[in-house]
């Protein structure tokens, strides 16, 4: 029940509060990576980041699933996005002078959050995937 409530609250994302939290987590991750180097802080921020984005992803793609599966598949898709993003930077660095460093990683994480949040709010994905 708690999970369902949490899932519902995050997916509603009233006034974009969870999008902002995810973006703040991204900034925190950047700061921690470049200045603080505290694993505990990193774990907490990453869990926050993945929880919010997993709920967004689950809400975009797996609305017909029950909340548990929705969250797990949301997490899987979030990881896939991070993986594809990382791989894209790697492949892009073969063609353009771009480095796979902390700023690029942070930009990638922020881009994923913004994209997922927009898809979650605008319902574009649902329209796109409507058969």
């Amino acid at each position, binding site marked *: 029940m708690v999970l369902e409530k949490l899932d519902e609250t995050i997916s509603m994302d009233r006034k974009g509060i969870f999008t902002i939290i995810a973006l703040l987590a991204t900034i925190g991750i950047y700061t921690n990576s470049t200045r603080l180097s505290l694993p505990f802080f990193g774990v907490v921020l990453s869990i926050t980041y993945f929880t919010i984005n997993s709920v967004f992803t689950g809400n975009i793609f797996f609305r017909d699933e029950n909340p548990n599966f929705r969250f797990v598949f949301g997490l899987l898709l979030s990881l896939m996005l991070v*993986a594809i993003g990382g*791989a894209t930077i790697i492949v892009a*660095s073969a*063609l353009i002078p771009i480095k*796979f460093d902390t700023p690029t990683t942070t930009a990638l994480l922020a881009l994923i959050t913004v994209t997922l949040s927009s898809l979650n709010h605008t319902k574009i994905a649902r329209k796109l995937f409507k*058969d």
Partner: protein
Amino acid sequence: MRNPRKQSIHIITIMIVTAVFVYTVYWALSSWTEAIYLNLHPLVLPFYFVASALMFLIILDDHVISGIASKIGIVLAHSFLTRILAMILFYPGTLGDPFNHLMISRTWYNTGIHYFNFSPYTVPEISTVIGKIYVYQRAAVQHGLTVVLSRMFNIDVYWVHHCLVGTLWSLFLPIVAFKTARTIGVSNRVSLLAAVLMANAPILIGWSFIEVPNSLGFIFFAVTIYFSAKLLTSDAKRKYGFLAFSASIVSLLSHNMTGFVAISMLLLALSLTRYDDIRKNGTKRKGLFVLLLGLATSIMVLPATTIGLQVVYPIKSNLSVSKFLNLGIDKIILTHYSGYSFLQGIMYGIPSFLAIIGIALKQKGSKGKMAKIFLALAFTSLVAQYRIFLYFVDPSPFGEHRLLVLFPFAIAPLAAITIDRLFEWLTLPTTTKSSYHIRKSARENPSKRTNKSNLTIRQGLATLLIGISLSAFFAQGTLATWEEIGQRVVPIISVYSMEAAELIHEEYLRTGERYVVVSDKHTELAGGALVGRYNPNEYYMLSMGTHPNRQLYTQAIQDISVEPMFIAAKVNNATTAYLVTAKWSARVYLGPRADYESIVNDLSKFYETFAVLGSGDGQIHILRFRIPWEPYEGTGPTVTVLMDSQEIPRNTSYTYLTRDKVTYTLNLTGASTYNITNWPLAWSYESIDPTPTKASIDANTWINFTASPDTSYTVKWIANEIYPNVIWKDDSFFEGAVGEGWYYYWARCNYTFKTDGDILEVTWEGNPKDNVMYDKQLPHLNGSLSLLVRIAVREGTTCYIELWDDRITRTKVFFSYGIETQGEYQTKLYSLPEDSTFSRIRLYLVTPDGSLCAIYLDYVMFIQI
């Protein structure tokens, strides 16, 4: 409201399961040692077996725990347990590819740049844009994910890399399998069985914790299968089509093999949807044609891309009938199973066998029919792809057996159907009358079952039988995988190698001195994993492909030489070179006769001992050598020179980089004849430059030559000043009678034995195994001695040196074993037995195949240590 009795049973069961799981982990932790070999505590497997049995009992029986969420939780916990056990037992990791990829991830993490950009060698693969993209995309998902997660969590790359595959596999594969099974419309029990089977099938359990891109590719291949199955059963076709495509791309960017097979599965699913659409419109034949076309396309995707790979990368695979013709009939029919043991065959083959039965078994209703057809066709396609690779793709860019690993991802739900049906069959009451109808009615309406008490006993027995059989199957599969990895040569990376790399790195952080490391395989991987591949400041020489680390390392410990350090240091202009030796490597690289203690003892004369770590076979010696880029120079000892019969003592000069190879030089001018004598015994005459018109040399005692008074002559000697105490030597190798020079002892071949007063050249040929022996008397040498020999042995030549004690009876007291130098002059040092007397030295020369053999001997010296 839940029944309180049921609830307490539920809680007690969970507690028991937790206790068993925790104890299994505890015994695995008790197993772990610092050894480089697998050590398994005798209680690990029984506990794992009990843990698995409990899980199966809970899956099969609803009396203990009925909620599906709890059951899935236990399946997930078991899945994690399996991976955790392997990761503990093989900590800090297995030898080979996992650490190679960790090195690459480390370079990405540290520099943000592909390691090829730091390569000191030319890399032809990235000379074209396409080639560069191909190289960069390989394992990009693994490196990308590891680096991003490492930065996010702020946890070292090693830990993220080490836990990534195991965690993703344990968490997602059971759920993906569960959901895939649900798409074919089966019960929760079947889905849970499928979840266990897919996560833990014996053929893929090894891949589930080894941190390689292939393993990640397998995970996303399974995800592709699920989304493709959903594509066939759900109305949201576009969405699942998109998701399946995305998963296949992730799989492709993890590992190309799994990626292309994943794409082929998606193509198959799309052709099935098309078939379904056409069939519904009534044109069945056209639909069937589309389906067959889709199946053929899916089968040919991987072979076609493999052969097309040569366009972008220098791997050349072809379709070849000759490969098929060269296969034995057993390999053609049984494929890889022909090479498996009976137990392996059973373990790896059972899921496929059960799946074939599962395909044939009828299912209630049409829900999920298309998904079931898809899984059956996917299985067919995988079998066909595997056989095409095995029979016709030559050479295959990857081991064909890897395609077998893909089977469980498609067939787990089908195999689970069979297991479930067997369980149902065992639990239903037997009757002589119309058993089919009774079973059917019992299945459809359990309340109508008769003889309730008998049924409970039957059910209990069936649950036990199936549960214990399955747990035995999975426990055996897990054990077989551990043993298979454990049986490899030095399978587990040494913790001392990890520690050695840390120590060297800390020294670098303290001094900032650029260094290079020549080392055993474990330290090479551990070091690269710590500092990254091709790190120009902290460079670990590598062994894979044509990289020379193993060759340099073997040379250093075999010849007790610093020369490999100079070669290595040139790669990154290092000022310090480390030679990290591991005890196991002496046996593995040099053979069982190698004595590690004496090797390290001899090496310590040339190197500074930086640290000694650990004990046993994994013991490590870190030896340091400062690279002298500028040679040391100075004035050497005086030699006696008769210049036109007038005795003039002349100073020599010396120059050296390392004390094992000091060059002494004497410059002469102004006379027409020279006679040089009285140089130290440790010196070995090398050359006169320019070559005099007439020369007569006995490199043991004198050098006479006629010269032009206007020309300046340079006479050179070399000496190994690490061992200056020479008590006997031969540098001229003249033949003579017994007691005077080298004499013929035995020959069964055509041979020549000639010397120029400095270098002895012996050639021989004849029939295979023919040999020649030449001996020389020694002045009964004894004490703490070593034998120093400078020799060049032609390739394909067998040469031994023997020492004999002839005082009372003829006794062989030393044997060098085969001396190999690949045609180059090398200095060999042999420690001699202390309690022996050496009366005679023998050259024992053999032609292995009868062809022309040769050796060139510069000197033999007995030195006192």
